[in-house]
Structure formats: C-alpha cells, structure tokens
C-alpha cells in the first residue's frame, strides 16, 4: 500500500481463547475518509476483530490480543472502551447501547456530559458540577443535523423506530469531536430496506467529513454499493483484500465460503426426493428473537439427512425451535399425515418429533444433575417411562434409569466416570451426546438437531457427526440438521436448504459450487439460475 498516512493500521492481529484460535495474522490499513468493508461467515472472526479494536473486556480479560494497532501513526494500547474512545475510535454496535428511558441528548452525551462548576463543586469536586442542558442540547442538535435528522433532540428513545435509534447511535459517535474511525457492526440487520438505504447515504456523508468507516456486513450488494476496499475473513484468517473495482459479488461469495475440502463422511443419497415427504412445512413463521422466520415452506423426506444452513440471524435456527414449540410460531406443519399443533412442545413430542437444542447448556441440559437423570428426563415426563406406579402415585424406577443410562453411555461412547456424574463436568462433545441420548429415549421418527458441533473441539466434532450418521442408518431416523458450519453440512447431508432473511432461499446439493452457496447465503440472485 502507498505511504499515505493511515488513520488506522492493524498489523498481525490475532486472538486465542484458552487454546482455541479464533483470529490470526489480520492486516488492515485505513486511510482517513475511507469506507472499508469486512465480510465473512459466522465465526469468521469479524466480531472478535471489532471487540479487539474497541477494547471490550471479553478480550483483555481472556489474555489480550496479539499484534499491533497504530492510530494516526502512534502505537496504541487499547484495554477498554474508554481507551478506544479517547483514541477516536467509535462503534455503532449491533445491539444498541441506548438507554430507552433517556432522551436522545442524554444518550448522545452519556458520560460525556457538558457541565458548569458551581459553589458545591468548587469545594467538593468536579462530579458535583451542574449539567449544562442548554449546551448539550445544542451539540446533540448539531450531530443530528449532520445526519439530516429533524427529530427533537429531547425526545425519549423508547418508542422510536429502530432506524431512528440507530441514527442516534451514530449521532453519539459523531458528537465525539476526536472521531477518526467509526465501526459499523452489521448495522442493516435490523433495518428495513429504505432505512438501510438511508444508512448507506449517511455513511457517505460521514466519510466525506474525513472519518474512516469499517463496515461489517454479510450483505454483499451493500458492500459493493458503498465500500472502496474490502477484506474477506474466513475461519479467523484474512483470505483476500480487494479494491471494489477489482471484484464482484460472485468472487466475494466464493471467497467467503471457501472450498474447504472437508472429509466427506457419507455419500449423499440422490434418491431421497423419490419418496413422499414425511414432514411438510408450509408458511412457517417463528418469533425467535434474533432468528426470525418469516415464511418457510419445505418438504422433508423419510430417512434423509437434510441440512438447514445460512448465516447467523437469518432464521435457520428458528425453524426447528418454532416447530418444536419453544418459540411462538404460525403456519402449517404436517408430520406423517398428522397435523402438528404449534406452540406446544408436548404435542410435537407426542407425534414422534424430537429436538436437540442449539443452546446445549441453557436449554439442553440440567447441568447440576446426573447423566442418567438427564437422559431419562423427557421420556419420564412425556411418555411415562421409568416410573413405577402405585395407584395415583408414581415413583422413579431408578434401576431402569440406570440400565438405560449404561446402555446409552456405551452406545454413544459418552466419556464419563459413570452414569451418576454431573453433566456440568463433561466436555462439550459428551454433553452433546447426552442431549442426543435424551432425545433418542423418546424413540422419535424424526430428529431435529441444532448446531450439533458448536463449541466442541475438532476431534469431538467428527464423533458427534458420526453418531448422527450411524443413528440415521441404524434406526432409519430422519435427521434435520441445522448448522452454521457449511462444511459439516456438506460432509454429511443429502440436501441442504439455505435460509436467508427468514425464507428458504433455495435447496442445494452438497456438491454444488461455493459460489452457489455463497450467493444464496448472502441473499443475492444468481444469474445462472
């Protein structure tokens, strides 16, 4: 790159979380007023990179980061958000850092209030200075005007539309007079199309004021609209840096997804769609915060392993959660000829559907209970298994539970000290197996598994996937696997449905090209379709 003074120079940035490497050798340079896009899949490292830049405690309380950051030529040690702010780095967070009960002005001036000294403060200290509301409102007005917002600076945040709230976030950063770099972390995720367009216009305005922008998003057309330079991250590494004129969305999509030659664990069956569908989903919508499903229709065939993939927040996780009644849902779901009642976990389970949640520790396990109690739990409650009956009373049949637990520990190869061990003590992979065992105890005909290998180390990942494959083959189980890791879906599934913006963007074969996958996940239309 040329010798022009960079406002931000990140060299060799890396991060390791207790042996788990999430980021390595990232190099990024920003010129003043440049708009630089950062693209990548989930887990590519985008958020980690921004957490490092913004000094979030999750970074430096877990060992800090590697590499050097220079701001306007001077080396910088960023250990807290305050440090970042003092250096002129601002961030528009994905989850707004706005206090709903406060006015726009109070939010803009949070902990940077303008004050006037008074009698008390001269004696006791600066914290007793009077707030200069008039001056603060003036500054807030200026920041809002820069963004062409006419809303009253004294309006309360609560009740404002999302697009407005985001602009207040931006205004807050603009109000910081020393602002040099502004980071946008997936800003358009919560916006409508017109709001998103306004945002892109605002970005141009900001960059014209000489402020450099880092724009993190997965929406490739937005990147191409507004960015000058683009960095693509994948698996924590920087796979490419391009100037906008030197690339196009197809290349970006391909780079994002990457041709990982993963081990193909199982040959995908070509004939799955020959049979009639065993599960039909029509117009499913699910209100799962962060993973809303707006309209999904899908046919799933008996005995297949079908993957549901897509980028984070696009809705893929919501599908299974909605059908199994964990989140409010609407639509029509028919399994094996029977209508499944939504918003009712019991009904789904009674109809031979079972679910292994993506939230292993939060929803999938009783962490302080034994393995055997976890495995038997749902079967006890929903199917009355493992209970001895005495008239109207029941008593747990501990022997039967023990027997079953021993059997499952052997079958699924769960590494533990015994069936009485507390599940909290198990490794991620083994915890996952306990969750699978619990679902299997219901003897389901179809199993939904969400993020089966999340948070599990590489060695154990294969084991969990192998287990699922074996189950499908041994029991003829239909498996619906939702995962953010495209590679694992491609190594195991017969078909893969991609969910983008709450809808099915399409169904691909594991052997389809990276470009196909990348574009579908980014929500772009493929010219060759």
């Amino acid at each position: 790159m040329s010798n022009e003074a960079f406002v931000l120079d990140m060299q060799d940035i890396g991060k390791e979380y207790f042996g788990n490497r999430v980021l390595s050798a990232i190099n990024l340079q920003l010129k003043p007023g440049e708009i630089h896009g950062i693209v990548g899949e989930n887990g590519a490292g985008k958020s980690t990179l921004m957490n490092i830049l913004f000094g979030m405690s999750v970074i430096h309380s877990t060992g800090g980061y590697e590499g050097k950051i220079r701001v306007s030529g001077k080396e910088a040690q960023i250990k807290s958000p305050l440090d970042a702010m003092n250096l002129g780095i601002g961030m528009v967070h994905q989850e707004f850092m706005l206090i709903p009960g406060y006015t726009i002005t109070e939010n803009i001036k949070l902990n940077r209030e303008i004050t006037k000294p008074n009698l008390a403060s001269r004696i006791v200290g600066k914290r007793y200075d009077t707030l200069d509301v008039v001056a603060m409102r003036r500054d807030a007005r200026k920041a809002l005007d820069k963004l062409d917002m006419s809303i009253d600076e004294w309006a309360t945040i609560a009740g404002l539309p999302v697009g407005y709230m985001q602009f207040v976030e931006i205004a807050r950063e603009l109000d910081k007079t020393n602002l040099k770099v502004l980071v946008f972390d997936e800003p358009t995720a919560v916006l409508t199309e017109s709001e998103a367009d306004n945002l892109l216009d605002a970005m141009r305005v900001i960059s014209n004021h000489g402020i450099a922008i880092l724009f993190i998003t997965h929406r490739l057309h937005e990147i191409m609209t507004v960015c000058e330079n683009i960095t693509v991250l994948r698996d924590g590494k920087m796979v490419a840096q391009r100037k906008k004129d030197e690339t196009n969305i197809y290349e970006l999509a391909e780079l994002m997804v990457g041709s990982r030659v993963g081990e193909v664990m199982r040959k995908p069956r070509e004939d799955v769609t020959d049979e009639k569908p065993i599960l039909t989903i029509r117009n499913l919508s699910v209100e799962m915060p962060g993973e809303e499903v707006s309209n999904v229709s899908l046919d799933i065939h008996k005995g297949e392993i079908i993957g549901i993939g897509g980028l984070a927040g696009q809705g893929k996780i919501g599908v299974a959660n909605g059908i199994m009644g964990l989140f409010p849902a609407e639509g029509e779901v028919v399994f094996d000829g029977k209508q499944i009642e939504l918003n009712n976990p019991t009904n789904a389970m009674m109809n031979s559907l079972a679910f292994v949640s993506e939230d292993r520790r939060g929803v999938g396990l009783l962490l302080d209970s034994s393995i055997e109690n976890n495995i038997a739990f749902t079967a006890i409650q929903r199917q009355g298994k493992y209970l001895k009956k005495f008239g109207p009373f029941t008593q747990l049949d501990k022997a039967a539970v023990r027997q079953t637990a021993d059997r499952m520990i052997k079958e699924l190869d769960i590494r533990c000290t015994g069936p009485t061990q507390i599940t909290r003590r198990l490794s991620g992979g083994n915890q996952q197996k306990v969750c699978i065992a619990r679902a299997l105890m219901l003897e389901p005909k179809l199993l939904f598994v969400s993020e089966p290998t999340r948070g599990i180390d590489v060695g154990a990942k294969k084991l969990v996937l192998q287990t699922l494959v074996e189950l499908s083959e041994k029991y003829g189980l239909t498996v619906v696997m939702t995962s953010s890791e495209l590679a694992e879906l491609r190594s195991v599934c017969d078909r893969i449905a991609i969910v983008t913006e709450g809808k099915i963007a399409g169904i691909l074969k594991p052997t389809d090209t990276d470009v196909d996958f990348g574009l579908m996940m980014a929500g772009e239309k493929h010219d060759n379709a």
Partner: protein
Amino acid sequence: MKQTDIQTMDPIPSPAHEKRITPDKVKRFLINNLVTILFVILCAVGLRLSGLSMAFYLNDIVSRFARNSFLVLALIIPVMAGMGLNFAIVLGAMAGQGAIIFVTHWGIAGMNGILLSVLICTPIAILLGWMTGRLLNRARGKEMITSLILGFFANGVYQLIFLIMVGSPLIPMKNEVLVLSSGVGLRSTIDLSGGLRYAIDDVIRTPFPQFVMYLSLIGALYLVSVIIRMRSGKVMVQQYSKKRLITLFLLLLAAMIWGLVTSLSVSMINSVRVPAFTMIIIAVLCLFNIFIVKTKLGQDFRTVGQDQHIAEVSGINVSRTRVLAIVMSTLLAAWGQIIFLQNLGAFSTYGSHEQVGMFASAAILIGGASVSKATVGHAILGTILFHTLFIVSPLAGRNLFGDAQLGEYFRSFVAYGVIGVALGLHAWKKLMQAKNQKKV
C-alpha cells in the same frame, strides 16, 4: 408541587389535542397512582372516624412530619441509582442514635450536644454505608432483600453492643440513669429532657398559619424568579407550561392570604407551633436532592440506575457509584435519626430504630414512589399520608370497634401490605414491559 419531576426532565409539551382529559387517561392515572389514591381515601375516612379536631391533628402531623421526613428523603438517592429501597438506612439510624446516647452520657446538652452528635456519627455512618454498599454490590439483583436482612443483622449487633458490651470492661460506662442496675447494658428507655430534647426544634417555633404564610411567600417569590428567567431565555421554555405556573402561583397566593387571615384570628390553629428551624433543615435536604439530580453525579446515579452494562461500557465506575449512593443515604439517615430523637424526647433504646427502614419505605411508596423512581414530592406527600394513618388508626379503631389495639393492627397490616403490594405491582409491571419489549 414545584418542579419535582426534574428526574425525567419533562418531555416536550404535547400538542393541544393530546392535552384533553380522556377516560383512558383517567384510567391510566388511577392505575399508576393506585396506592396513593387508596391511601388518601383511607386517611380521609380515618380522620372522620377518629373525631379529631383540626388543631389536634395539625399539631400531631406537624410534629411527626418534622421528625420523620428527613429519614424518608434519605431513601431517594439509592432509588435513583437503581438499588431499590434501602432498608439498611437502619445502620445509619443506629450510628446517629449511638452518638446521641454517648453525648447524653457525657451530659452535653442543647445545640452543642447536637453538633457533637453529628460530628461523632458522621464518620461511623460513612463507614457503615461503605460496607453496606460493598455488600449490596455483591448481591446485585437482590439488593432489597439483602438490605432488609442486613437491617435485622445490624439490629442484633446493636443489641450486642448496647445491651451486652456497654458497662462491661469492653465499653466502660458508669451512669445510673442510663445503665441498668446490674451495671451492664442500657436501660430500655432513654429520656433526653433537659439534654438534647427539642435542641433543634426549639431554635425557632412559629405558629402554623404564620408558617404557611411565609412558606407561600417564598414559594411565590421563587416562581416569579423562574418566570423572569424564562422570559430572558435562561431556562428552557418547554420545561414548565405557562398554565401550570399560573395555577401554582394562584394557589400560593391563596395559601398566603389564608395564613395571614388565620394568624390574625383567634382560631385554635394558632396554637399549633411549627419547629421552623427543623423545617429549614428539611427544606435544605429537599433542595439538596433536587440539586444532585442536576449535577453530573446525579446523572451518573441515574445512568447506573437505568442500565448498569451501558454505564460500565461508557466508562462510569458502576460499583463505586453505587457505593457512593448508599453512603450518602446512610449518612443522611444518621442525621435524620438525630432529628427524630431530639423531637421524640424519650425513646426506646432497643426499639426506636428497628422500624426505620420499613416505615420510611412504606411512606415513600405511599407517596407514589416506586422501586425505580422516587422524588422529593413522593417523600413529602408519603410522610404526611403515612403518619396521618398512624395518628388516626388507634382512635378510629376505638370508635369503630371499641378497641384501639385493632386500629394498631390495622395500621401494621396496611403499612406492610402497602410495601408488599407496591413492590409486587412494580415487579409485575417490569415483567410485562420486558415481555412487550421482546416482541419489538
């Protein structure tokens, strides 16, 4: 009353059509202020049933207000900082009470005694407040139950000190009046007459009507100054609507005239004497609370109270701010207890501090405060209502059932019930709000 809603700094006045009084608005007003309204009715009924004359009532309520409102005001700052009702003001009260006991033992009377008590209890209260703040930080999310239990615990320690250790070699005290005949432990009542009794109250005593007159005069003058400042643009015009100010001015004028007329008549009300100096001290605390809200510190308190995470990320030292809020509250409670005791005159050594936290909390809740919002107005109104109930219950009980004790029980039932209901309603509202927010 005046600009007591400074905490939210009144939003822009709504357009004309929104100002009309609609049945929906009335319903909302009733629900939001259910507890206060219920109480006003209760007090009105109780007053009639008790058969008290206005003069008697006024005398009693003025006295109670003067001695209790300081303690109630001490609760405001922790509520601002999101720590709920600080039941642990008991610790501050104990510090103040302890100081008074020792000053009485040393035989120092009058204002000197009071000043000495203040001097002694201040560092102790600050230390206790600091410890309380640290503990509450450890129990985040459970501040109220923790401060409640802490109050009980501290009461045990207080008894340990004053019943077991005083008089023993640990805390030598030879005093036949104060100490039990066994030589160890304080007697169960301590009489401050001739010593600290009325030390503050007696500084100035004004007949009630005159007091009202002067108060309204000051209020009216202040209003005039606000209007002048508004004209010259120094104060945001939107903050105070003109209609409100004019109504307020007229009310104050009416009060002034009433005060003047009554003081010149032979009404019994003229014999009701207000401890004006004490009232001035209370007014100073009110002003202090209002002042704090307008400072950077007050804004920090509010920010921490609204969202600890955002406050932390914005660079505010949340833990220290919370501790500071508790320290201030405890210190004010210590001084408040001194005011309380000098008015009470004779007090129960082991009993008069026990209920401080609960009574003050009940009072402020009755005044319309909630766990997340409390203002000077709430404190003042609540103190008046709560103590009115105190005054009328035994008499009403006797007139209604022939048993004053029943009135007492009823009063306890209501006081505790109010807190339980207010806390419950607040928790329920918050849960409903969270559910609605998720839908957005």
